[in-house]
């Protein structure tokens, strides 16, 4: 294995402080919140989090806040534009010496998949065009969670949501946010999972050190919307990785690298059967849907393995 250039080599290198305090109104077992916890601990205290409407908007409810850094709630469509305004203002204040460089802050956008893949895409695209120096954290619970888990452009094919209750579930396909960003040459991109804190820490550390637009997409198992018991959140996170449903990868300098290659992928059914939103896939007549999903995963990973092999032979 190649040595990794990171201050996070072993689990014990992970920070033992918790920046985000507990006692919020977020559901028990929320995988998104777990990932956000881990991310903020690496980002540190000097952050401004610009939030788009979604589940996490209820983290700060007047007059309480779990944040040790600053927080600005904007709207569902325009958190990246809010981040632009904050960043521009900080740059202006620094240039005019109205604040010192140690008063500078990391500007972070926090939104769900619905905002990131849909209504917020225009503002996001503008921020990328302008090379805004910010980190976009998208917690992906694969639906409009805050409004009761209707399908969003981030919902996977076949999943049952409150607006796709038919026998075959959601008929659309999960939008590839990673590729949308990648096509526009961001500074850094990565997928993470709260169930893999070391991998997550390394990626956040990297995003923090690189100037320009960065995106972190965090796998966010949602007991409330996906229908599983809250205590299984981490298990589902692990299964998503081991079945290959949630590839851990990053993009940097024009290249995509998978940071974890599942040696022996588990069948996708191991992941699906744990969640109520996929229960109907096991009904007679829906076998083809599971087959399709497995075939798609196999094709994806075959492609990844091929490109890894060809780059190894080149080296």
């Amino acid at each position, binding site marked *: 294995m190649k040595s990794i250039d990171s201050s996070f080599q072993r689990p014990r290198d992970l920070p033992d402080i918790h920046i985000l305090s507990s006692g919020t109104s977020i559901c028990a077992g929320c995988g998104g919140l777990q990932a956000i916890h881990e991310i903020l601990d690496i980002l540190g205290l000097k952050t401004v989090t610009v939030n788009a409407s979604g589940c996490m908007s209820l983290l700060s409810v*007047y007059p309480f806040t779990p944040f040790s850094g*600053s927080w600005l709630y*904007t709207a569902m469509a325009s958190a990246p534009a809010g981040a632009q305004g904050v960043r521009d203002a900080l740059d*202006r204040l620094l240039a005019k010496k109205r604040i010192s460089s140690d008063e500078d802050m990391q500007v972070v956008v926090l939104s769900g998949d619905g905002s990131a893949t849909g209504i917020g895409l225009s503002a996001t695209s503008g921020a990328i065009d302008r090379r805004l120096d910010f980190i976009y954290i998208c917690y992906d619970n694969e639906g409009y969670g805050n409004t009761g888990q209707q399908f969003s452009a981030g919902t996977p094919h076949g999943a049952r949501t409150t607006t796709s209750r038919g026998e075959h579930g959601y008929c659309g396909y999960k939008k590839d946010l990673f590729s949308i960003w990648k096509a526009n040459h961001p500074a850094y991109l990565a997928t993470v999972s709260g169930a893999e804190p070391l991998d997550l820490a390394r990626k956040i550390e990297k995003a923090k050190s690189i100037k320009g637009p960065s995106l972190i997409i965090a796998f966010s198992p949602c007991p409330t919307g996906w229908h599983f018991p809250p205590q299984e959140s981490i298990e589902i996170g692990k299964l998503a990785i081991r079945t290959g449903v949630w590839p851990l990868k990053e993009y940097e300098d024009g290249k995509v690298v998978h940071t974890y290659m599942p040696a022996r992928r588990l069948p996708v059914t191991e992941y699906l059967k744990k969640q109520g939103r996929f229960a109907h896939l096991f009904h007679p007549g829906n076998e083809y849907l599971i087959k399709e999903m497995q075939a798609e995963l196999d094709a994806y990973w075959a492609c990844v393995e091929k490109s890894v092999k060809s780059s190894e032979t080149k080296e």
Partner: protein
Amino acid sequence: MNKQMLTGNVAAAWGARLAGIDYLPAFPISPQTEIIETVAEWIDTGVMDATMTTLDSEHSMLTAAGGAAATGVRVFTATSSQGLLYGMEMMYALAGWRVPLVLINVSRGLGAPITLEPDHNDVLAARDSGFLQLHCSTCQEILDSILIAFRLAEDKRIRLPVLVNLDGFYLSYTREPVIIPEPKEARDFVGPYDPGTVRFKADAPISEAVAVLGGEAYSYFRYEVQVAARKALEVYEEIAAEFQAAFGRSYDKIDAYRADGAEYLFLMIGSFATKAMDAVDQLRAAGWKIGLLRPRLLRPFPDRDLRILAAGRKGIAVVDQNLSFGRGGILHTEVTSSLYGQPGAPPVIAGFVGGLGGRDIAAEEFYQMAEDLKKACRKGVQPPMRLLYTAGELTAMRKLQTIAHAVRPEGGRDEKH
């Protein structure tokens, strides 16, 4: 004295320049675009020291404006019409954030049908947003109002965003002589930007614009905006007095023209009020006792000033350049509710709607409105609302339709016009 011929848009850009803005988030839309083009050129040529960022939309533009103001810089931005509506969600948000920025709206009628020419349905759609509103009728007033607007917005007792309105074409693209204040005098008047308590700082983290649970917390903050907005009546007076002392030009909350001894009054906002001034001159020459009231401040609404100015008159003709479909003119409702039951209030407040989408209001129409008002006052009965449109215009429209083979059944053909 530096006096130049400036369009309303360039006068607005001068306002921003003299106010020493830090930040201009922008998005183009006619007839506003000349403002951001002018500032962009000044920045590019080093004449002006500010940061300008073009966003992907007005919704983003206003979000960036609010984010920057909340981080502690002086923010100016501009839009029109469809742009104002596109950003409307954030208008309400920014007032709630209590960020003291200044937004120019260059009025333009709203689609559909799509048009570039002005009326006030755009700016009045923002009436209830929490932005304070100043309405201009000359290019000089635009520049001066921006300086006043920054003072008003940033005043510690207020801390609300302020919208300055000017009419597309009639002001935006019309050159008028404008006195450009000395930069130092303008800077002294506006003062340095004090971010106050709304300010992101590394060593003093805060949460802004957070959610509330329950109507008690919600009402608490909404009422606070109301209190601040009403306070702006008094604060505006102080600032306008200071402005007059510094620059010699006076801007009352309501501009009264030849109102002394008038039995009848027109009431209008914006550039078309200058047409009403001409009509007043003509009517006065013909022996009428008539004048004009032009509210400059629409939010907060200057009730007390209006009551004093209206007391003892026979009647007011409110001319609305907007239309609330199914109701009528918006100003008419505002004026009526402000005067109802007040001692000495005129018994008749007649409502007229005209000048939509840049349609002219001719002198003859003002005379006709004055006649209508007089007649209603004689009867002592509030007349029904009238939509200004002439038989000639209707004939011309139908002729055009005939030429284009586009004759159509007309809705509302039975309506009197």
